[in-house]
């Protein structure tokens, strides 16, 4: 394992401290319990709080700020944060209109946020994101995982919350965006969790993991590596299968790097994916290409498609001022 770290137990706090120092105009860091809030608390709005295991940076702290999150709770690397973090974050961010938790659908995250919600002295609701269509949904399982589509949910719900909308309205929009969003990822290499010190999974030089999770969880299947266009075609087909978009749908296309894949390749993926989607009668009118929901140092990328309507488009386009997304302000 080759990483810029000192003691393994200090990685998280040192990194969070660096983030807070670099963005002190935007965010405030609390340690023990660990959470981040906006530097300027907003009033009279639903407080939007997200969180999850660390290692997916810029998710979630990079999305704190006007038009997006009010607070974020970072867990240990790839481990859900704990209810005390959410309670303290909610206490700090609560602005008289309740708390909306945005939670990626993993057993651990769901249960920890659930317990926090039960203990919370404020009204709250939860949007569970579940855009990863690598996992074939079935009534027997806990359903799809939440991955990069979470960023789109956070952006849109954050925008609506700034208008003073109710908790219920925010939840409804979040659920809608989630239901119109599907993602699938491909790993070329494994990630290495600092505390583990070695790759999460073994993968040969000529293999890829199709449908990999953002924690390096296995996906649909292990395959022999092929040319990019063939890989992208399979991912796009899986997404189309999941979303079944109508002809002439308008969509946002997000090409997300997992951490170690250069922008040059991400734009190559965008090129092919956009062409394939156009071919299927989908009109890509919004785009985002870069490292937005990572898996530490994994080489690989995911494709996310979000079917737009006027409401989602309006909230995607509206001003946002965070460490990672910034426009209109």
């Amino acid at each position, binding site marked *: 394992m080759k990483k810029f770290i000192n003691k393994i137990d200090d990685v998280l706090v040192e990194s969070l401290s660096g983030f807070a120092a670099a963005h002190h105009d935007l965010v405030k860091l609390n340690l023990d*319990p660990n959470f981040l809030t906006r530097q300027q608390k907003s009033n009279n709005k639903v407080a939007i709080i997200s969180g999850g*295991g660390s290692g997916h940076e810029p998710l979630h702290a990079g999305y704190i700020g006007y038009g997006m999150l009010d607070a974020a709770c970072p*867990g*240990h*690397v*790839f*481990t*859900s*944060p*704990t*209810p*005390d*973090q959410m309670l303290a974050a909610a206490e700090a961010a609560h602005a008289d209109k309740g708390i909306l938790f945005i939670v990626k659908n*993993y*057993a*651990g995250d769901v*249960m*920890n946020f*659930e*317990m926090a919600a039960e203990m919370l002295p404020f009204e709250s609701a939860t949007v569970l994101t579940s855009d*990863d269509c*690598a*996992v*074939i949904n079935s009534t*027997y*399982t*806990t359903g*799809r*995982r939440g991955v990069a589509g979470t960023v789109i949910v956070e952006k849109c719900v954050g925008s609506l919350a700034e208008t003073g909308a109710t908790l219920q309205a925010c939840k409804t929009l979040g659920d809608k965006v989630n239901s119109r969003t599907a993602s699938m990822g491909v790993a070329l290499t494994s990630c290495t*969790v600092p*505390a*583990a010190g070695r790759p*999460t*999974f073994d993968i040969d030089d000529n293999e890829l993991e199709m449908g990999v*999770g953002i*924690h*390096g*969880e*296995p*996906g649909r299947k292990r395959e022999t590596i092929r040319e990019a266009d063939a890989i992208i075609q399979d991912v796009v087909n899986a997404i189309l299968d999941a979303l079944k978009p109508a002809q002439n749908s308008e969509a946002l296309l997000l090409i997300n790097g997992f951490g170690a894949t250069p922008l040059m390749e991400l734009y190559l993926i965008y090129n092919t994916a956009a062409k394939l989607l156009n071919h299927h009668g989908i009109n890509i009118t919004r785009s985002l290409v870069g490292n937005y929901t990572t898996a530490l140092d994994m080489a690989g990328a995911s494709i996310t498609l979000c079917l737009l309507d006027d409401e989602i488009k309006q909230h995607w386009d509206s001003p946002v001022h965070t460490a990672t997304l910034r426009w209109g302000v």
Partner: protein
Amino acid sequence: MKTSFILNVAEYIRDAILDHESELESLDRAIGDGDHYINMKRGASAIVEMRAELESLTPDAALNKIGMKLLSTIGGASGPLLASFFMSMGKTLKEKADDGAISYAAAFADGVKAIQQRGKAGLGEKTMLDVLIPVAQQFLTLTASHTNTKEICASLIHTAEQGMLSTKALIATKGRAASLGERAIGHIDPGAKSCQLMIEAVCKQRLLIQD
């Protein structure tokens, strides 16, 4: 049960976890995200460090405190589940008169029920419950029939092991491995393994006192 027993068991459990680092790590790497060992180590170590704070408490209060500590320490899926277990166990113990093994078996069973409620899972879903549900059942049965401690301990160690091994053949329908489908077959569930280790640690510690 004395609080000192709980504290000793905590050390025993922590050691058992530490001793199985590479096994727990590889199990969660195979069908999860690889952090289960670190999570369990963090939790177990935190409890051992609470010794001074717990010593003066009654067993039920100590179990409740342990649950709360685990809740804010472990995170992940195992955190809220194990926390629910201990908090619920403490609650039942507090409500029930202490009539020895019978009340512990009831408290244990309530703890397992709390896990089931929190995780919305049952038997055969390739989770820690495949160890905990059979153990709870067996514990109730054996204490109801006034089996002696030595036999209870031996039986629970065996039941836990069987439960843990049973997860190998299963497809997961809960937790992180649920997305794996058929590919989960052939791997033991990490949570089941750590629960088996913990039960073994408790029982062995109990047998030591027995002698």
